[in-house]
């Protein structure tokens, strides 16, 4: 390499210097630690005993126990030591764990049905929102629709105020329609909120796909719907994945409507978790266990779709 070339790399505007790279790397790691630490703390707390969980100074090293998880999944009653001594010997490890604290298991807790509710409502509304959003976005992107701009603005305008602002009317409406505390009601509500986001995001993605692709398919013998399914959708996968994640995160985490509209049958995890705190003292390990469980599906979903997500979020920034 010539002297001139060496000098030019030292001042390159494309390649960062090793020092800059190290600094940038350090910043990224610092940020990761700051964001991941609370999560790790929750995961750890789930394995602590109740006294370790509230110990001061906080315990980083502790003896792990599954009590938090056992408490999360069961309902227990407090008994006198005499009564417990008279019982037949415990059949399972969790019976034993509970009896040490002078309690017996009375039955399973509601966490599993609540978790199933969250899964059904979260994924159901995400699927519906993305499905409807894709069809609407395709139509807006490809067809001459009268008043298209006004319609798009109207769709967006549904997101201009916080959804909770209409909580009371929706509550009254749901009561009339017998939709309160039903999974269908929650799916419809979350779909309604998400579909505007889905239409706008997906329209951007579909606009980027040249129409020639589906026109070629139309000329070659496909119907409009076949062309959409076999030609447009495979290319919009990135956008659909990104949109699905955004929609799922919203409906998965939604708290205000869930508190207001569900209390039993259709209750989701967000209103259920604080409910755990109230049961027999502040059971932080059980809350942490519930939170850990609650985070898992979103993390898995995001990890599964991550290769689409990175391109999805920055779409349009760089043309392929």
């Amino acid at each position, binding site marked *: 390499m010539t002297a001139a070339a060496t000098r030019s790399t030292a001042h390159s505007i494309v390649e960062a210097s090793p020092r800059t790279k190290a600094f940038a790397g350090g910043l990224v790691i610092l940020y990761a630690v700051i964001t991941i630490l609370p999560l790790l703390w929750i995961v750890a707390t789930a394995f602590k005993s109740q006294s370790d969980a509230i110990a001061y100074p906080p315990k980083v090293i502790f003896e792990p126990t599954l009590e938090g998880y056992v408490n999360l999944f069961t309902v227990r009653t407090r008994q006198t030591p005499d009564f417990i001594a008279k019982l037949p010997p415990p059949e399972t490890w969790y019976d034993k764990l509970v009896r040490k604290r002078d309690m017996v298991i009375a039955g399973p807790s509601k966490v599993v049905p609540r978790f199933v509710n969250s899964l059904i409502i979260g994924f159901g509304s995400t699927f519906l929102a993305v499905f409807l959003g894709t069809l609407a976005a395709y139509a807006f992107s490809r067809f001459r629709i009268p008043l298209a701009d006004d319609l798009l603005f109207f769709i967006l305008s549904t997101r201009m105020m916080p959804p909770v602002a209409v909580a009371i009317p929706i509550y009254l409406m749901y009561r009339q329609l017998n939709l309160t505390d039903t999974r269908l009601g929650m799916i419809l509500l979350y779909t309604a909120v998400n579909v505007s986001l889905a239409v706008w995001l997906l329209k951007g993605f579909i606009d980027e796909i*040249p129409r*020639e*692709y589906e026109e070629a*398919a139309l*000329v*070659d013998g496909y*119907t409009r719907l*076949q062309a959409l399914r076999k030609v447009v959708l*495979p290319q919009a996968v990135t956008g659909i994945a990104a949109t699905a994640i955004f929609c799922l995160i919203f409906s998965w985490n939604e708290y205000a409507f869930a508190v207001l509209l569900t209390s039993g049958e259709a209750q989701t995890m967000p209103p259920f978790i604080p409910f755990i705190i109230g049961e027999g003292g502040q059971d932080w390990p059980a809350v942490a266990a519930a939170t850990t469980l609650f985070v898992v599906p979103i993390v898995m979903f995001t990890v599964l779709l991550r290769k689409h997500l990175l391109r999805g979020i920055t779409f349009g920034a760089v043309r392929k």
Partner: protein
Amino acid sequence: MAQIRIENLRKSFDQFTAVEGSTFTIDDGTFFAMLGPSGCGKTTTLRMIAGLELPTEGKILLDGEDVTFHRAAARDIAFVFQLFALYPHMNVGENIGFPLKCQGMARREIRERVQETARMLRIEHLLSSKTSKLSGGDRQRVALGRAMVRRPKAFLMDEPLGALDAEFRHLMCGELRDLHDRIKATTVYVTHDQLEAMSMADQIAVMNKGRVEQIGTPQEVYDRPASMFVADFIGSPPMNFLRFEGGLRSGDRAISFHDTRLAVPEIREDRASAPLALGVRPEHIRFADAGAVRGEVFGAEYLGTTQIVTVDTAYGRVAARLPSSASVQIGETIGLDFAAERLALFDIGSGRAIRTASAEGVRHG
């Protein structure tokens, strides 16, 4: 293979009329080019023939059958797009076989047809490649393959060479014409590049502002332009226009051009005095001291075999194509002599060519 007939075809989008009332026939096996500047309606016309756009008025007939409102898929026509529109999620072979798959053909038969098509285009070795790895020319061949594999009634091509670089475009022009000669399919080719149209087409339709200005062979369009627009659009540099005012009488073989008499092809129509233009191609100008028009040399552009010399005259700037050996001094005053039998006359008001012995029988759109 098929004959395509367009009758009074019109297309408007809201206030804007993209194509207005053109009527023409594309004969079976013809390589038909639609040529014009961007926004002239050539692509819209093509898309209406394909069924990707519905006309506002008029009819499209394929082999005598009215297909105006048939779905694109029902017309048995292949379309080649400027951006090739190769599906990025399929490899070359799958792309070529796609139209057959749409028709539900058996897999083995598809494979045979794809092989055969690839052999014809000399891209057999690429069948299992990803389309994103191909060069521009190979992409173009794959796009053509996808069009050919179905053996459609007609090929419609929308600036298929527009995305290629100049050198390659020239090569592909040759290949396309060669391919057409082998399979003899009716081809409608849309382009804004006159060289592509001139070098490949049997017939050229020159379009402007939604109207077909002229339809003819490349020679007709070049030698006997039907309007000032065609004369100006085709040829590089374009035809020179020298304005004058005067009347014309059928049978005359000369016109009064300002103060002089100029020999022209025999005039075939009578005209009251009106603003007219004398059209002369750069290659039909000679420098001669006795020339009817005098001017001062403004500049010369050397092109290898010829040179383009621009001359400022009293009637405007004129470009002349001279042998590159001719020595020309800038600023020198010279006389221009025109080849009388190649001159054209136009009515400036309407832009139309005036009928003369050389511009007789020109087909307007």
